């Protein structure tokens, strides 16, 4: 089968055992949307399942083919950066996680294998330390880590899943979905391969599309090219570099350095700043009067703790507290029952939520494709050379 691995992994945390089922060509063709497949798998394996998966076009050469998903009854979380790509290369198209582990640990997925690794150390560590230690223990700095922090461990509704080091994707409290399963993280590394129906044609055609987009969009200035709120002096002055997700020619991610000169190109400080792509969190920071520097530090504190920043800031304000770095740090250090703001980040790329689901379900970035103008027929036609047969419906 082209563009797919043909395999679904199932991990029952209660039993501590993995199993597999075939993702047949017939099943795959029934539904090209990873979201609908995830919903179907949850119906089959239990509505309380967590389903991780990639879209049909994820990892292909069509522009911004970076997206995977994490689905639960609580909601839907896009998996962006390089995580969607790496997930597709693990050898699984979807992973279903069921049950609850007896002791804390993380799921480690690679080379068509899954294992649960106990991690007693995670109870005392924030999400950044989890990513650092898992990468160090498994000996590979490119391992993608979806982790909870203390807020997820405590099962708080404002908990946020952190992708490697950054928050921004999870606005539904998915961090607590991992926490309630004693799952400190899901880690994966892609070392497999995906076959294409017509490799050369897919490559050449996709490059024409990328070139057309680059010509139309010009050079990206990072987040400010997508959101005017980032087009302010204090934000621009801290900008180090703009960073793309897999296959994206027009990045929306801006890394701001606050603990060293943003012009420093050598690796000096290990934790000099934060990667911004969380629009509602920054919007809230600026609305509450934080500078770009203070907003950066605040988001860093929230990501480490695994708490959704807009929720935390709203919680501070609701409690009558001042909103500043010290207050954010103190609140982030004590998981509480504040409400999840259910802010929308990538979801707000389109006014129509169905278009958001269509792009994400296909495996491409909603933010990028809303910028360039989402056209399912066009994407499907470019994907056809990779898939080998017509793609649809969305």
């Amino acid at each position, binding site marked *: 089968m082209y563009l797919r691995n043909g395999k679904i992994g199932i991990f029952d945390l209660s039993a501590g055992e993995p199993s597999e089922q075939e993702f047949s060509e017939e099943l795959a063709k029934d539904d090209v949307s990873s979201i609908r497949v995830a919903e179907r798998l949850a119906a089959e394996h239990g509505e309380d399942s967590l389903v991780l998966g990639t879209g049909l076009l994820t990892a292909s050469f069509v522009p911004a083919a970076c997206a995977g998903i994490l689905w639960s009854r609580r909601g839907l979380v896009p998996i962006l950066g*390089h995580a969607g*790509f790496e997930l597709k290369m693990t050898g699984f198209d979807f992973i279903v996680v069921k049950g609850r582990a007896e002791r804390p640990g993380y799921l480690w997925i690679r080379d068509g294998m899954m294992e649960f690794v106990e991690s007693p150390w995670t109870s005392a560590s924030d999400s950044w330390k989890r990513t650092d230690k898992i990468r160090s223990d498994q000996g590979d*700095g490119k391992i993608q880590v979806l982790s909870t922090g203390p807020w997820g461990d405590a099962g708080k509704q404002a908990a946020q899943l952190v992708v490697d080091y950054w928050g921004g994707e999870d606005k539904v409290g998915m961090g607590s979905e991992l926490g309630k399963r004693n799952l400190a993280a899901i880690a994966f590394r892609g070392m497999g391969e995906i076959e294409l129906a017509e490799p050369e044609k897919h490559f050449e055609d996709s490059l024409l599309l990328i070139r057309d987009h680059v010509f139309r969009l010009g050079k990206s200035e990072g987040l400010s090219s997508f959101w005017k709120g980032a087009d302010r002096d204090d934000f621009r002055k801290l900008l180090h*570099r703009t*960073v793309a997700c897999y296959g994206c020619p027009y990045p929306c991610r801006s890394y701001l350095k606050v603990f060293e000169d943003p012009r420093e190109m050598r690796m000096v400080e*290990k934790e*000099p700043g934060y990667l911004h792509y969380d629009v509602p969190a920054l919007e809230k920071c600026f609305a509450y009067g934080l500078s770009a520097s203070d907003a950066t530090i605040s988001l860093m504190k929230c990501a480490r703790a695994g708490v959704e920043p807009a929720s935390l800031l709203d919680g501070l304000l609701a409690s009558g507290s001042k909103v500043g770095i010290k207050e954010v740090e103190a609140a982030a250090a004590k998981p509480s029952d504040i409400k999840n703001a259910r802010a929308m980040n990538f979801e707000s790329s389109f006014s129509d939520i169905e278009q958001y689901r269509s792009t994400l379900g296909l495996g491409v970035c909603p933010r990028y494709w809303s910028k360039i103008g989402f056209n399912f027929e066009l994407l499907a036609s470019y994907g056809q050379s990779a898939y080998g047969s017509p793609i649809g419906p969305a």
Partner: protein
Amino acid sequence: MIRQRAGDILKLRIEPLKCICCGLCEVACGLNRDSVLTPMTSSIILHIEDKSDYFGLVLKSKSEGLVVARPEGTASGQQASGSSGPGAKPILLREPCDLCGGKPKCAKACPTGCISTEG
């Protein structure tokens, strides 16, 4: 700026500060080798230290050995300092760049001009 020569005709040039970390070069290289989507056989790989926003490219070339194109500059040779990062290790076991027989796919796929050809 790094230059990789194929005879005296073609040169591959890398300007690391133009890199946006999209990874298309890596996958394009794998496609040329195996006609599949994979980053595992590429002669060019992303070197990423994401927490500090430090990234660039590592190329295994025939003429210069391991070429590390880092944000602050470049170095080449089998013992290139800084090549011990996690992304650099497996590249030592891979085939060196053959410039795709004269039409490097990494340069073709690069959307920013970070990798380009001369000659």
